[in-house]
């Protein structure tokens, strides 16, 4: 190993340690925990093959996302990570010619069972997209809409407030809830989108590069938020930002060309990966 690589590794280690996980004291997962976590994982895929026409984007992936943990999925562009993520809440249904094979389970629900309503899947498994995409309506309506159409029986104003507070946006927008959401900054819009997902009280939150369009300040807001949310949610985040994966995630999956190359605790992936390809990728030698 060259000194440069050595330096890179140390800097990554430093990055991981620089931001203390805000809610809990630093606790590294021991290997026994890992087996436990994987055994108890509720969101699982086995032999997942996803193809667009004759193109296979995901070529037979077995993966489990531990509950109440953050799992980062990393890999070069086009490796199939977003496609895999979208399969878990049936968002590939909207892509013409996309076909999902294999078994995708959440708890005892087969996500692709003919008798399962995709709407139900998406109610339990929420998603935040890469680009902030608020509805062209007021901030209030952005959050209130989905609970309302799903027959929310509680106090809607209260739900809007708690959702915005949990997304760390309340203080910035409490005096303009009835202004258009399009007047917010990019970072605020993305937090609004997270608040909107939280209002539906999903059990799993899928995040598809949620910070790629944001500045560092907004990014750190959202990362803090994720660390708080994992108390109650299982979070899967697809990211191109390796430091982000190192900072927030408990587990990391590395994908390349539609295959899952390595899945392990984040610290292991970034410091002591088993596969050469993983090491090359996390140390920035390719991708």
């Amino acid at each position, binding site marked *: 190993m060259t000194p440069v690589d050595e330096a890179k590794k140390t800097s990554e280690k430093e990055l991981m340690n620089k931001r203390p996980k805000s809610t809990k004291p630093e606790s590294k997962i021991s290997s026994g925990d890992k087996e436990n976590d994987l055994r108890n994982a509720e969101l699982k895929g086995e032999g997942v093959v996803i193809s667009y026409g004759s193109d296979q984007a995901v070529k037979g992936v077995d993966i489990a996302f531990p509950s109440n943990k953050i799992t980062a999925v990393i890999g070069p562009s086009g490796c199939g990570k977003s496609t895999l993520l979208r399969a878990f809440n049936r968002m590939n249904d909207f892509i013409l010619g996309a076909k999902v094979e294999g078994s995708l389970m959440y708890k005892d629900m087969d996500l692709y069972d003919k008798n399962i309503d995709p709407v139900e899947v998406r109610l339990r498994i929420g998603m935040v997209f890469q680009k902030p*995409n608020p509805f062209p309506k007021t901030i209030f309506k952005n959050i209130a809409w989905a609970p309302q159409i799903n027959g929310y029986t509680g106090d809607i104003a209260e739900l809007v407030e708690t959702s915005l507070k949990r997304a760390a946006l309340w203080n910035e927008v409490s005096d303009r809830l009835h202004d258009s959401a399009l007047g917010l900054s990019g970072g605020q819009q993305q937090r609004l989108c997270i608040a*909107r997902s939280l209002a539906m009280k999903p059990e799993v939150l899928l995040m598809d590069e949620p910070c790629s369009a944001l500045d560092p300040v907004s990014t750190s807001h959202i990362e803090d938020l994720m660390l708080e949310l994992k108390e109650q949610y299982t979070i899967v985040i697809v990211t191109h930002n390796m430091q982000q994966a190192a900072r927030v995630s408990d587990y990391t999956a590395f994908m390349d060309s539609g295959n899952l190359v390595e899945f392990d605790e984040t610290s292991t992936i970034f410091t002591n990966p088993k596969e050469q390809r993983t090491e090359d990728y996390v140390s920035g030698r390719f991708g």
Partner: protein
Amino acid sequence: MTSSEHSSAPEFNSRLERRRAFSTIFKNSCAILSWLCIGVLGFLLVHIFSSGWEWISFDFIKNAPSRMPHKAGLFSALMGTIWIIVTTAAIAIPVGVSSALYLEEYAKKNRLNSFIEINISNLAGVPSIVYGILGLTLFVRFMKLGPSVLSGALTLSLLILPVIIIASREAIKAVPNSIRLSAFALGATQFQTVFHHVLPAAMPGIMTGVILALSRAIGETAPILMVGAVAYVSRAPHGIMDGFTALPIQIYNWAREAKVEFEGLAAGGIIVLLLVLFMMNSVAILIRNKTQKAQS
């Protein structure tokens, strides 16, 4: 030396002066041609207003047509046009927008549907007299609706449906897909996604199409003549099954009359027709601006 003096590298012969001259010529020809159009339109308006304005009066609006120019009015034609256009809008807008929604949001992209799509575009180019003949055969005779407001409105609806469908589809297509995806990701059904988000976002574009289509329908003469709008109707229709006449027909009849006063009456009729058109478009533009504001 000319401009090549300033060229950055010897391989370029940029001929900047020539290109600049060409730019100017093009810009000016565009300006001349558009002002020519506006000029012709202006001349038409001036001509019509100067010969028709003196005929515009309250009596002109409220009287029935008459052989005597000074007693003649267009009440029945004006009411006929209003009946026709309201009925046409009530038929064509829901049908057109639903078809557009179906084709854009629901229909699978297969051969049958692309065949349908191509033919909708073709239908937009069919001459209006052909629709008139179709209306006569289908609505007046086969469905036995007679020469009524309903037959006329159905015929005009067929005529403007392609325009409404094409414009609505473009508007629906322009709604960013991210809006649909985020609605679905929040647990919405397709109906909720379409009615709460896609349709409101597409509304300004749909209204533009509707304005264009209804403006065309209001001026059409041939198809409603064909389905039997009669030249002389002295009373306004009271229901959709009544016989009717319409402003363009009244104008045409007056323009054919031998007495020179009727020319003025025809011009007066055109002014009334333009005013109706203008009012109708204002309403549509108002709705469009309102929905546009709600979307920002």
